[in-house]
């Protein structure tokens, strides 16, 4: 009797022990200086909401932290194209359930994709899908076939975690029963963490599901994303161990490192790129020599070393996003790099007929992840003053600048953005947006050659051909000095002392929180 009791006790304690070891505990807190928007419905978000929604939802196609498509990390365990590249067949993972218990099937995949390109959607990337998509077939609960109007290679990357939210799989039955508005308030997904609460302007809180195929048993019981705009406040919270992961400005990295807090970088996280507002025909920058001169007059190394605290690299190619270079096999030749040569800049200006310089407007504004925006604009103005150009700084905020840019009310004026780095498909959509035909309001280049190349890429079905076209496009942009690629920015993130290791990854706007919460 006593022995049986003892055995029972032993068994009980054994199961207790394993249960305790497996259960998620504690809270992971991520503090950021801003959230792009704070919506919980992927169709209303866009690439800006990936970092927290990616924990709540699964993607059709997953990616590894360094940006490669992976059948292990998405709902699709395999995918293949028909020989004419117009039918894409996806085989789905079995036994995946939403947080309310519903099973995830091909019906949900079809529903989610159609919803993402529907009229209510403001994800920002739906345009290409709308143009390409003919229909979606669901021959079996674990098989989806996407049929396109033109042959194309873009479907898998488009529906992956590398791009935006179009690939997130949503619960059809739940949304159809409670409606879009209720879903936006209380979202349900199939990801490793489920939604608990949101206070706009303050935080989003998620709670772990007991076990998930993507990460195993989650390490933390809750994950909270907080928005703390003021840097001093954020850093004080890191010091007090209230926050485990926070973005930090480049100027304060040394202070935090000296206090013993590990700082990790997303290298080449963004390209800080400047351009002249179109149309150029009545402005000095219509002359290629002037554009080259303005590029040569800037000391990129000095800016990288001082304003960006050494956490930046000089850039040479307009829209040259390096993660795309890797995909299309482009190595930047040395001749493409811009030396700092104010003398030659002045000579070029004189040659072009502007020996006495000319006035130019520079819009100065901050951007999320670019607190140094205004400082940089002032610095550029300083360099250009030294070669005889007469810059006027116009401080605005980004929306005000964008209006002038899109309405084309300030031809020849300078604007800029920190373009998040991304793979080739992301770069293609970017080029489509900013370098494609004057009829698009956000065009910055107005170059027919580039237009032709971009048109060819969308319907090319041969990877080597696509790569070659992209390389040619970059070469042309560089040769024409189509903009001012300034520096690649490394974004520092400071972590609390209890975070042992973390790879921030190189997926656009995704912090690889998976890596922090995955089972050891």
């Amino acid at each position, binding site marked *: 009797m006593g022995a049986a009791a003892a055995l029972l006790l032993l068994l009980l304690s054994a199961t207790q022990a394993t249960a305790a070891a497996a259960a998620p505990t504690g809270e992971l807190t991520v503090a950021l200086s801003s959230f792009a928007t704070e919506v919980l419905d992927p169709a209303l978000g866009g690439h800006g909401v990936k970092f927290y929604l990616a924990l709540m939802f699964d993607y059709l196609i997953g990616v590894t932290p360094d940006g490669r498509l992976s059948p292990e990390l998405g709902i699709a365990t395999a995918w293949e194209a028909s020989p004419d590249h117009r039918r894409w067949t996806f085989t789905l993972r079995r036994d995946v359930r939403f947080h309310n218990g519903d099973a995830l099937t091909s019906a949900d995949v079809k529903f989610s994709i159609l919803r993402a390109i529907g009229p209510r959607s403001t994800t920002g990337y739906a345009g290409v899908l709308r143009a390409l998509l003919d229909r979606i077939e669901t021959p079996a609960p674990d098989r989806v076939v996407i049929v396109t109007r033109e042959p194309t290679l873009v479907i898998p990357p488009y529906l992956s975690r590398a791009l935006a939210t179009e690939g997130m799989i949503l619960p059809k039955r739940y949304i159809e029963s409670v409606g879009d508005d209720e879903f936006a308030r209380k979202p349900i997904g199939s990801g490793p963490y489920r939604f608990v609460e949101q206070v706009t302007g303050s935080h989003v809180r998620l709670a772990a599901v007991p076990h998930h195929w993507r990460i195993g048993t989650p390490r933390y019981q809750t994950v909270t994303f907080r928005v703390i705009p003021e840097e001093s406040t954020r850093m004080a919270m890191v010091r007090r161990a209230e926050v485990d992961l926070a973005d930090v400005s480049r*100027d304060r990295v040394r202070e935090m490192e000296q206090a013993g807090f590990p700082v990790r970088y997303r290298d080449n996280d963004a390209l800080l790129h400047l351009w002249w507002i179109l149309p150029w025909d009545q402005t000095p920058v219509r002359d290629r020599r002037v554009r080259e001169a303005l590029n040569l007059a800037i000391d990129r190394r000095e800016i990288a070393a001082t304003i960006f605290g050494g956490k930046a690299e000089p850039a040479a190619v307009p829209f040259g996003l390096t993660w795309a270079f890797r995909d299309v096999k482009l190595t930047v030749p040395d001749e493409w790099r811009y030396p700092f040569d104010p003398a030659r800049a002045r000579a070029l200006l004189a040659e072009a007929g502007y020996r006495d310089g000319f006035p130019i407007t520079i819009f100065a504004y901050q951007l999320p992840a670019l607190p140094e925006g205004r400082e940089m604009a*002032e610095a550029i103005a300083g360099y250009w003053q030294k070669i005889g150009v007469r810059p006027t700084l116009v*401080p605005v905020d980004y929306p005000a600048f964008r209006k002038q840019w899109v309405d084309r009310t300030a031809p020849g004026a300078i604007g800029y953005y920190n373009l998040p780095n991304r793979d080739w498909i992301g770069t293609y959509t970017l080029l489509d947006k900013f370098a494609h035909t004057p009829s698009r309001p956000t065009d910055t280049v107005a170059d027919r050659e580039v237009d032709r190349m971009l048109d060819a890429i969308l319907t090319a079905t041969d990877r080597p051909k696509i790569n070659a076209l992209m390389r040619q496009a970059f070469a042309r942009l560089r040769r024409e000095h189509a903009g001012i690629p300034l520096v690649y920015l490394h974004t520092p993130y400071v972590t609390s002392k209890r975070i042992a290791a973390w790879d921030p990854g190189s997926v656009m706007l995704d912090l690889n929180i998976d890596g922090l919460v995955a089972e050891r």
Partner: protein
Amino acid sequence: MPSSTPESAWRRSSLFRRMPVIPVGIITGFVLLALAAGLVSPADPYAQSLRARLAPPVWAADGSWAHPLGTDRLGRDLLSRIIFGARVSLTAGVATVLLAGLVGAAVGLLAGYYRGRIGRVLMRLTDATLALPIILLALVLAVTAGPSFVNVVIAIGAILWARYARVVYGEVLALMERDFIAQARLTGCSDRRIILVHLLPNTLPSLLVLLSLQIGYVIIVEASLSFLGAGIPPPTPAWGSMIAEGRDYIASAWWVSFFPGLAILLVVLAFNLVGDWLRDELDPKLHHL
């Protein structure tokens, strides 16, 4: 006070003896600095030099006399920017307060004298204006028309006048009960004459007190607006925006925020103390200011 008696003569003479010397001295000093900025400043406040950014003041390890108080994040000399900043910040303060005072006094006088429909409408307008938060309005203006010196003055002045209007209105109401006003009316003085010659001079003391107290307030509000991105824009040196720019460097380059902050502290404290003293001198009953 219009009447002249031996008592008030005594008061006026000892006024100077009881004047708070230090605050008045500080104000005078900064005003002189602002006027002579070009002569006194060691360097060009706009000259940037990235390699010399965030250099410490002269007494620190890497400091030098080239930049006695150090440099800011673009390598501009801090001392020069503070001296020129005196010009900008003081002008902003005085301009806003004068503008608002002019409008406010006019409204208060008219409302108090004419009463009736005009008075009620003007006071409704005043109350409505008082209910608008200054900082929100300034933000909206900055976001709509872009931040600028003029926009800051307009944004603050557009709401500040209401405070003066209320005070002047109260004063005028009290004054209207007095005998000399009734006398002036009986003797056939025109409305304009009564307002300008009899009412206005009697409201000046409280107006003066309020104005001197508010100059400091305007300088502080400009700083808060710069913090929110709606203040006097770079590269113009203004104390408020200098503090706002330097706030992320408190731990690493404390001087960038500290010295402009010290300047604001001294000047605003001085104005406040002078205003307090003026009020105590003129009429301790003005406690509602």
